[in-house]
């Protein structure tokens, strides 16, 4: 068993920092929160209702960023973002996509399939989904790996903005994340 007796609630405007040694179940916890993994026992509630029962209504409020970038290597950054936005059910606004691309610093690379980009740039394309998303709950699994200093700053800003607007961020990382407002809670697994 990875973990048991886990009971916590996260309010709006909070960053929940999940920590723990390798193999302590951070990713499993995050995947369980998203419904990608069914825990042996226990329940996960969103606004007081079971996420299983909410189904699509819960997933509309959720954005998950896992170890895999979730972008197609043969599509360009723009095409990837357009598909992601359509699937999220947002009206696809071309100017918003371009703005997101500009913010992650990939204007000029928009015609290249993402397979030609570097690891860090691919991750930036995936991160652009955070800029486009309206979901109040972000679940981010090790979002800082493979990012350069500039991208780390950008991601920290995005997380801080999201929390300041009353959103919830649940993330695993080995580094500290500074917030401008809102509060940071810590959950330590495996102790």
């Amino acid at each position, binding site marked *: 068993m990875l973990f048991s007796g886990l009971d916590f609630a996260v309010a709006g405007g909070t960053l929940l920092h999940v920590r723990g040694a390798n193999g302590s179940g951070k990713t499993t916890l995050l995947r369980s929160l*998203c*419904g*990608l*993994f*069914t825990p042996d026992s226990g329940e996960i509630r969103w606004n007081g209702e079971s996420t299983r029962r909410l189904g*699509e*209504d819960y*997933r*509309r409020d*959720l954005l*998950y960023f*896992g*170890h*895999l*970038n*979730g*972008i*197609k*290597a*043969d*599509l360009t950054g723009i*095409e990837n973002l*357009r*598909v*992601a936005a*359509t*699937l*999220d*059910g947002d009206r696809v606004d071309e100017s918003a996509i371009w703005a997101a691309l500009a913010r992650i610093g990939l204007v000029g690379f928009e015609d290249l*399939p993402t397979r030609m980009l570097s690891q860090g740039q691919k991750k930036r394309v995936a991160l652009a989904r955070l800029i486009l998303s309206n979901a109040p709950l972000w679940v981010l699994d090790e979002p800082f790996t493979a990012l350069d200093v500039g991208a780390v700053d950008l991601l920290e800003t995005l997380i801080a903005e999201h929390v300041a607007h009353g959103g919830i961020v649940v993330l695993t990382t080995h580094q500290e994340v500074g917030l401008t407002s809102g509060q940071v809670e810590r959950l330590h697994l495996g102790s």
Partner: protein
Amino acid sequence: MLRVFWCVLLRDLTLALRRRTDVLTTLFFFIIVVSLFPLGVGTERQILQILGPGVVWVAALLASMLALERLFAADYEDGTLEQMVLTAQPLSLLVLAKITAHWLLTGLPLVLIAPLVGMQYHLSDDAILIMMVALLLGTPVLSLIGAIGAALTLGLRGGGILLSLLILPLYIPVLVYGAGAVTASGIDMADTRPYLALLGAFLVAALTFAPLASSAALKISIE
């Protein structure tokens, strides 16, 4: 809803066009398998006319098997499948869009090449017409049923072989009625109607249940 369907369909078609070899492999496999038989059994007109319908259908079955493994595998590996499961869209709709794209890329070319293939077997014009109609009704069923198997075997080691063991027996009704329709056209065109009607019924049933079953299987496989 329709917008999401189109989006996934166009995405898969774009991806396939950027990686054309995958599509062409299926088509050429079909052409080669079908062409091997006349070379092997000789060019005697009567034998070929009897063999033709069965060979074409078996080749279509195998060709559609060949492409099935990749239906969800690529999306599974790069995490886009995970993202699809987590969107607020009904997964069965997204799966149906993916199956449609898969059929357009691997099933429809077989239908279109059928007249050429039929000529190798000295099939009459009527028989070729019926073969095209039967393939048009039958190949989507192959893609739909195959999707269930592809979803179930996703991420398994040696999933390809398991997939064929799982799915090929389920293809038998389509094979029997598909080939039967073409054979019946040699006797009387009116005789083909029940065969085609049954193929149509399979198609409706598969369209109803396969997307639901595949999306349920995908959710299990992703865990």
